[in-house]
């Protein structure tokens, strides 16, 4: 049986989703969990086209981190392909090359993804914190486009190999992180459909993040008193917060119920992560990691 945490066992784990769904926290949590199990893990950030420091740093035992820069990835790729220093120095120095690196469509996306693909052999797991939906999708489309665009040669071959890796469900997991809210779920379903067209053999995984669970005692209190509050209490942020959270929980459960049908075509069970109340981001990631481990066990 497929387990909702099986994606944690894959070599390349691409976390995607709409902005604000907590993708970065989930990526942190997954990376910390795998590293704590003794797996050599790389947490890789692809923020936007450029902007990362592109420096491999150790952030915990077994856990390396890098924020990629496309220009550095480009350099590395050219050096890898041309090998001879005289050759690549001349090529990288050429204005035509600089023009192509900046302007040719897909080059940046291709080298970013290529770097991730290339590093896969150096780690047990690479957890990739992808940019938000639209850009992430066009990034993933690039090797597929390139495999069609180029008639042959090393770039064509590499694109083909990347396509193979990304299409293989044993090697790569596409994980969509979502909230149990209407718009994010809608977008996640659209994304899953888009990926299904691209890699039919490797359907996406789904993680529902930040699920609200109001405690039973709070719910009982609300049932008992919520409808007959004094005028002063009606304006109290504490009562308003309780009403808000109960309402959120009800709404979330409706959307989750709908997923029984709408997610069915994608064949994989989804993972549910509860809202954690820790103020600190790393503590929160740790709490989520612990709950993932529970799901995995």
């Amino acid at each position: 049986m497929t387990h909702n945490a099986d994606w944690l066992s894959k070599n390349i784990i691409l976390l995607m989703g709409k902005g604000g769904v907590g993708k970065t926290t989930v990526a942190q949590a997954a990376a910390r969990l795998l590293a704590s199990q003794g797996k050599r893990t790389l947490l890789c950030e692809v923020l936007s086209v450029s902007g990362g420091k592109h420096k491999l740093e150790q952030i915990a035992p077994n856990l390396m981190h890098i924020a990629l820069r496309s220009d550095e990835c480009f350099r590395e790729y050219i050096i890898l392909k041309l090998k001879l220093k005289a050759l690549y120095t001349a090529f990288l120095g050429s204005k035509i090359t600089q023009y192509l690196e900046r302007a040719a469509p897909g080059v940046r996306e291709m080298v970013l993804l290529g770097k991730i693909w290339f590093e896969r052999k150096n780690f047990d797991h690479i957890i990739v914190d992808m940019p938000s939906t639209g850009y992430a999708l066009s990034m993933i489309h690039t090797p597929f486009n390139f495999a069609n665009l180029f008639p042959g040669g090393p770039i064509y071959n590499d694109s083909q190999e990347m396509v193979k890796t990304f299409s293989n469900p044993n090697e790569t997991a596409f994980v969509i992180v979502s909230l149990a809210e209407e718009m994010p779920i809608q977008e996640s379903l659209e994304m899953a459909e888009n990926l299904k067209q691209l890699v039919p053999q490797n359907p996406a995984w789904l993680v529902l993040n930040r699920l609200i669970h109001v405690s039973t005692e709070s719910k009982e209190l609300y049932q008992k008193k919520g409808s007959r509050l004094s005028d002063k209490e009606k304006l109290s942020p504490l009562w308003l917060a309780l009403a808000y959270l109960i309402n959120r929980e009800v709404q979330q459960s409706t959307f989750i119920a709908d997923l029984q049908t709408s997610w069915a075509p994608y064949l994989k069970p989804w993972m549910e992560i509860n809202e954690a109340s820790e103020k600190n981001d790393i503590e929160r990631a740790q709490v989520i990691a612990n709950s993932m481990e529970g799901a995995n066990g």
Partner: protein
Amino acid sequence: MAKSDIVSLIESNRIIICCGSGGVGKTTISAALAIKAACLGKRAVVITIDPAKRLATSLGLEALSSTPTDLSERLASALKANNLPALRGKLFAVMPDTAQTFEKFVRSMAGKDEALAHRVLKNSIYKIFAKEFSGANEYMAMEKLHQIATEEAFDLIVLDTPPSANTSAFLEAPDTLAVFFDDRIIKWFIKPGSKLVAAGLKMALEILEKLTGHGFISELIEFATALFELRTQFMINLKTVSDLLHQKEVSFLMVTSPERLSKNDTLEFVSNLSPRGLRFWGFIINRVLSRRIGIENVEKIDLTALGKTVDAADASILLKNFGLLHPALEHEKDATRYLRSISRKNSSVIFVPEQQQDVHSIDSLLNVSQGLS
């Protein structure tokens, strides 16, 4: 009574450009602003690129349309149903098909030279370029804005910029696109001047040919040559669009949300505007939780005082429950402080409360619009 910031934003501008990264509710806010303007008696139009489907449907846009759709009747009945004053202005929406706009753009640049347009449109590099290139959507949005502004059919145009990873992408799009049309570079392909340049180019192209396989270079050279022929017209278009953005009655605002705020991105955007001579109006912070639950100042949450707003017997359970909102309120506090700290004296910060439900109906849009003041 002094006019609210939003009212003066609407009254003193002809074009409002809403920027912001994905997922902050930019489309919602853009639509709400246009609704507000229509309620104030303006003929308002919102141009939205690639919105979530449900939101488009709520606006009455079933499909992409390059001409404005009149939504006034829909809005008028929503106002009536909510016992609000009758609609004084008009509301329109446009949802252009960017692929189609791009094709039109190429055709219009080529003018009578249909063969040239055909050469570009069928080029395999162009096809990927139009689909995937990150500045293309943004530039098409500007072209659409220019087209609608030129028609002079509206008092106010609200532009919802395309979703992108960073907020500045919209501002940078013309420059990014201009790189393609940089004639110094394209010229090398066509007629490399000195022998030294020619030799360097030959070497680079040979290596490229090895990397990319036979045939790609000829496509690339054809693409570059065609762009070279289009460049004069492109530069004229670029100038026209840029002039429009620099007009006095054009304001830029940034939509953000406490959960989504990136400080680097925000600072980059704000500091990118004035060197370009563009006017920054301020921030609209969407989905503000504290406002939803009756907290006036998120920077000063006093749990002891909060405990006293309820029956002493219930305080401990309620306070414990309140703890679930800590991360969200913490983010909000941080975001509010930051935005206030970088706002200039004359720019505004507007808070829009978190809504009870996802915004995807004209009623809920109306609700958001009412909350803008």
